[in-house]
């Protein structure tokens, strides 16, 4: 057992750490230092800066423009990005449809889509859920009618986050209504500029522009945009879920949120001294930090498995359930530390910018235990797949 990084890995960490502040534009640095509130434009700008350096896709193989880094370097890279407070990149292209295309796409699809995902020329969003199909995703009803060389799509997708900024959407659509519900689904790539597509943004609880509804009315989509074969969509969706697992451990965001809590607690006073020096508040923060340490070790175990080319062990299944709860508890604690100031809602110049960003962030993170398969669905799956408890 060895829990340290090698000398080369530590040198790599220093390289990344030194590069970030040099590469980041001044206004972004300001936000990274705690002013918070990155816009989707900030993410796109940062994406292009990283691409120029060759670091946009640490987890892609070299042949398709990735860095070819091993798991440890990828982990270090992500950790440094989070510690520096860099804007998070859009995950839908780089971390979701990209890896899926690398594994299952045709050569033509790879050639057409991967370079533009990598460069940030094209952004993606996800079209899975529907108004009537949330946790029971396989019941989805958006139809794809066979019309020779193309499909005709009709229906509505919801929670298509950031669709208003996206160029493409990857969708699950019903291609065969006559078979078992999981067997009649196809994974389809749709250009959002196609006629008949309409995107309606919807504010989140944090008043941030994220959620959207996306409507399809007689939208023509060429069959060459099918990934993994017609009626193979459920298999594709499950493969994609595997990529999501470590993403949803929330290690970086939690580290970042913990630092924010401490910064706020250091700047506010209770009984005439900084809250960070008050034993009661220190203990509250320490409890979450200790839990975060344990959670981090679970993700290190998954990382170490990947490093050896093995599938992460069963314990990695708990990362989403534990990590999303933890980030919520941390944002709640940030609110608590702010006391009455946690009332603030998009005021300018009344509270420090960091504090002004907490309320919307706290609200937005309520989604974490819901998206990516709600934590209740996660528990159903773990109970059956890992603990092998009986079905009802």
């Amino acid at each position: 057992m060895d829990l340290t990084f090698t000398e080369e890995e530590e040198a790599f960490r220093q390289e990344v750490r030194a590069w970030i502040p040099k590469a980041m534009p001044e206004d972004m640095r300001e936000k990274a230092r705690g002013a918070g509130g990155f816009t989707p434009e900030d993410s796109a700008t940062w994406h292009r800066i990283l691409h120029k350096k060759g670091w946009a896709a640490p987890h892609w193989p070299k042949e398709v423009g990735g860095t070819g880094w091993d798991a440890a370097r990828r982990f270090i890279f992500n950790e440094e990005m989070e510690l520096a407070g860099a804007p998070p990149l859009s995950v839908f292209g780089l971390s979701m449809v990209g890896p899926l295309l690398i594994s299952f796409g045709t050569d033509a699809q790879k050639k057409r889509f991967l370079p533009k995902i990598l460069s940030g020329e094209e952004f993606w969003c996800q079209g899975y859920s529907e108004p009537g199909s949330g946790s029971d995703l396989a019941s989805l009803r958006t139809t794809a009618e066979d019309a020779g060389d193309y499909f005709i799509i009709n229906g509505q997708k919801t929670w298509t986050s950031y669709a208003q900024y996206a160029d493409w959407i990857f969708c699950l659509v019903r291609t065969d209504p006559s078979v078992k519900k999981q067997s009649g689904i196809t994974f389809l790539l749709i250009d959002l500029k196609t006629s008949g597509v309409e995107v309606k943004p919807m504010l989140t609880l944090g008043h941030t522009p994220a959620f959207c509804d996306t409507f399809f009315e007689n939208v023509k989509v060429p069959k060459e945009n099918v990934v993994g074969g017609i009626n193979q969509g459920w298999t594709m969706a499950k493969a994609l879920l595997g990529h999501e697992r470590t993403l949803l451990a929330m290690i970086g965001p939690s580290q970042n949120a913990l630092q924010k809590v401490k910064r706020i607690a250091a700047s506010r006073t209770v009984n005439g001294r900084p809250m960070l020096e008050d034993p009661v508040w220190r203990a509250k923060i320490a409890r979450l930090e200790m839990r975060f340490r344990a959670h981090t070790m679970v993700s290190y175990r998954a990382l170490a498995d990947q490093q050896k080319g093995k599938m992460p062990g069963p314990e990695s299944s708990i990362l989403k359930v534990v990590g999303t709860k933890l980030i919520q508890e941390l944002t709640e604690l940030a609110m608590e530390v702010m006391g009455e100031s946690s009332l603030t809602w998009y005021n300018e110049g009344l509270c420090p910018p960091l504090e002004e960003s907490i309320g919307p962030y706290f609200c937005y993170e309520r989604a974490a235990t819901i998206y990516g398969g709600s934590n209740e669905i996660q528990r159903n799956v773990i109970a059956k797949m890992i603990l092998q408890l009986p079905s009802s």
Partner: protein
Amino acid sequence: MDFELDQDQQMLAKTVSDFARNESPVARFRQLRDSSVGYDPGVWRKMGELGWMGVPFPESVGGFGGSFIDCAIILESLASTLVPEPYLASVVLGGMTLARAGNAAQHEAYLTPMIEGETTLALAYSEAQSRYDVSSVDTTARPDSNGYKLSGEKVWVLNGHHADQLIVSAKAPGGITLFVVPRNADGVHVTAAKTIDGHKAAFIRFDEVEVGGDSRLGEEGAGADLLDRTMDYAAAAAVAEGVGITATMLQMTVDYLGTREQFGVKIGSFQALQHRAVDMYAETELLRSISMAAMVRVDEDDASARRRDVSAAKYQLATGGIWVAQQSLQLHGGIGVTDEHDIGLYFKRMYALNALFGDQEHHVARFASDPSFAEVTV
């Protein structure tokens, strides 16, 4: 970064687990818990022959020069069937303190026989007023012509009822100092105490006990630092054992959910119970994961690095681990609250581990008062 055990360690884990399962099922612990000693010196000797007690000690004293990870493997495996022999008390508390504090002659006299399984040790450090503060010592060591005279009272000395030698902390003129005292020395009054988990400890009064200068371990005043270090090993040991206990309780509970029927179906098919079991699994894996960090870092000389992970691990035992123990009992229903069923024996052992070597509040406070805690990086 690598979390896997090497081949020797995997072998060790298998050997100890096989021993626990085949030669020391829970029934053996049940038989012994009402006896005056509470364990079997013959089995202790056998464990010595197998070399398990020598794991953390250098070869010069008859040990194997292994790491604390090896020790943790043994503790976790022995916990799976509640093996009652005093490994934690004698090897981790007594032995590891003696190894760091004593000289070659003292090692040969007291450590080597323990490693061979001929004797056992106990560490008498806690007093009625001290509550996890090893430097709160009222017992005195008054110098006299032949050495020292010890006076005072120690409480909850694990294995103190039967250990051959006691390692005792006392205040000498130069500060807190450790001494080796034979349990049967004149003036040592031992009162055996039963503990909630079916083990034995002792309250020990030292009444002008004469000890020679050669029973002093290290310099006068060296005791507090030595004990502080021992407490980290002890907390890590409790965590290692706790991993074995919680993992066993989880497995017993999952098995029970898969066999017990009510309303005509297996109760493990109920979603409310499935979700509880998943949360138990999550807490168990969190404990196992942070325990790995504690086992590795407990050997570090950098106190800050060492304490962060040891305290985080002991905290997870006190919160998540204890919760797993509570839920295991709850999901067993009425049978879990009987003495007849084994689940309750594991439950009580978890509470003993929780109460020893710093409770939740102690470790939260220690973690939060480390200088690194207040460093803000972003």
